[in-house]
């Protein structure tokens, strides 16, 4: 009886993980397949990657994605840290609501409302800047939550001790608060980066015509067909995201694993 239950459990988890990872594996495998069709394995090749590197549009999109991801996560880290500190320090009931709503909001809603805001209210030309602002908007909340969790686990007496021993508020931040929340900032930055680099829905609404990002570019390509080139770029994107997640666990293990 118990054995059967265990087998069932193992079988079920195996099925779930297969469901999650087999499609990803297929994409990776076929990116090295020497055939235009994603149908059967013909032979190993790197030609799709070579083709990718010669594709000007694709490179431009990748460049945009990287620039936006770096900039937006840097900005979101600064602003999110400020929000997180404020949430912890003053315990205002409405502040978490304000900061976290964009996290919980359906992406499509956020995309539409940002589009309306940029076009109707600000009369902004959509492009690099509008994408940047949009990405900052949805990343702040994540950083704020991570920073706040870190502060909540910290002895508040430390900040008083610093003041007591002669540190101005600024020195208290520089010498005590900042070093203690640094792991949270790193984790928040990497999190924002992964969110930004593969965002499709919101970017789709606020990108306009001139500027495109990697996910948008992939989408426009698969409208025609899922070519091995799409597989190749997806594989690269996957590798980058994975690296980021691994870096986050390495650099800020205590945050991602919980506990202090």
């Amino acid at each position, binding site marked *: 009886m118990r054995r059967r239950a265990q087998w069932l459990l193992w079988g079920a988890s195996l099925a779930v993980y297969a469901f999650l990872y087999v499609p990803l594996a297929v994409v990776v495998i076929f990116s090295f397949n020497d055939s235009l069709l994603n149908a059967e394995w013909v032979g190993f090749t790197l030609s799709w990657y070579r083709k990718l590197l010669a594709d000007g549009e694709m490179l431009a999109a990748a460049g945009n994605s990287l620039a936006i991801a770096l900039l937006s996560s840097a900005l979101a880290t600064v602003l999110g840290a400020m929000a997180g500190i404020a949430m912890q320090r003053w315990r205002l009931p409405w502040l978490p609501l304000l900061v976290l709503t964009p996290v919980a909001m359906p992406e499509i809603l956020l995309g539409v409302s940002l589009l309306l805001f940029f076009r109707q209210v600000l009369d902004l030309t959509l492009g690099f800047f509008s994408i940047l602002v949009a990405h900052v908007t949805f990343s702040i909340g994540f950083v704020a939550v991570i920073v706040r969790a870190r502060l909540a686990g910290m002895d508040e007496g430390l900040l*008083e*001790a*610093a*003041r*007591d*021993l*002669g540190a*101005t508020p600024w020195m208290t931040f520089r*010498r005590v608060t900042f070093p203690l929340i640094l792991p949270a900032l790193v984790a928040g930055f990497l999190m924002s980066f992964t969110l930004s680099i593969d965002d499709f829905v919101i970017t789709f609404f606020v990108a306009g015509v001139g500027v495109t990002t990697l996910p948008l570019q992939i989408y426009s390509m698969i409208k025609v067909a899922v070519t091995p080139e799409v597989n190749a770029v997806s594989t690269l994107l996957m590798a980058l995201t994975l690296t980021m997640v691994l870096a986050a666990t390495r650099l800020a293990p205590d945050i991602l694993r919980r506990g202090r």
Partner: protein
Amino acid sequence: MPLLEIKGVTRRFGDLVAVDGVSLAIEAGEFFTLLGPSGCGKTTLLRMIAGFDEPDQGALFLDGRPLAGIPPEKRPVHTVFQSYALFPHMTVAGNIAFPLEMAGKPRGEIARRVAETLALVHLEEKGGAYPHELSGGQKQRVALARGLVNRPRLLLLDEPLGALDAKLREEMQVELINLQRDVGVTFVFVTHAQQEALALSHRIAVMNRGRVEQLDTPERLYTAPASRFVADFIGKINLVDVEVTGNSHGHAGLRSPALGDLAAEPGNGVVPGERGVLALRPELVRVAARGETVELRNRFPGTVRELLYLGDVTLYKVQLEAGPVIEALLANAAPGRAKLFKAGDAVTVAWRHDAGVFLRG
């Protein structure tokens, strides 16, 4: 001029009066203790001295200058927190250097003073360790060193020994006394442990519900408590309900409803008819076997009901035939005979006429 003067300071939290019209003066070089039960406002008062809180009424003066509006970092007052609050990302040496760095001292001086202070608290070897690598007692020493290194005018210590076990606590008490004497910094020490207060302090302010009940030396607090609260809070004490019957030529009388007339010295200013208690320390109570003759006028027959053997002494609880239970503390001096009496023994309890203190209320 006193080093710190607290004048009529009151601090309210909503309806609760945490500190209620406290006035006291602390002299330079003193080991001053705020003693009182949990919630009596000790920490609140300390936070106002440190600058984390401001009084609603009254004012504080350091060296005669008002402290109002001066932020904590500008006050020459440092604090040793109960939780130690050591910076976890700095080494022991880094923690101790912190106040010197904030004061903008030159590098060479910082290194020298950190080394000196490490030696002062016997942690020469631990300069490079991080706080989480230290034992409770060592953390305590680092917190002390950090508070003292920049020689504040005033060091505030909020129950600094509260987290230590009994033995370590006693060791640290001795070290605290020596340290304070050696560096000459004025200490304001907070505790709710009366023994600790008696052992360490030059003067003690006993606080109750936000007020100072009595401010005195340990000896005076113990032998001449000014109120029932102080008598009860400090040490063990017997309280017998009494009424003043007369006060002529020193040998005034007290009458207890249960024990009848008592020979006592109620002190000056008491008026016949006043009610209160006779406060009697257990170590001033004598216990004799029923057969022995006792010369004292205050003597009452009773039975030993319980005893608590404490090694050097034994605490006897004697049920008097007249009603009250009197506690007596007797030294177990005779070798080979630890206890003088056992439960159920018929005894006589007695005390000298000047043994007790009359307290109103």
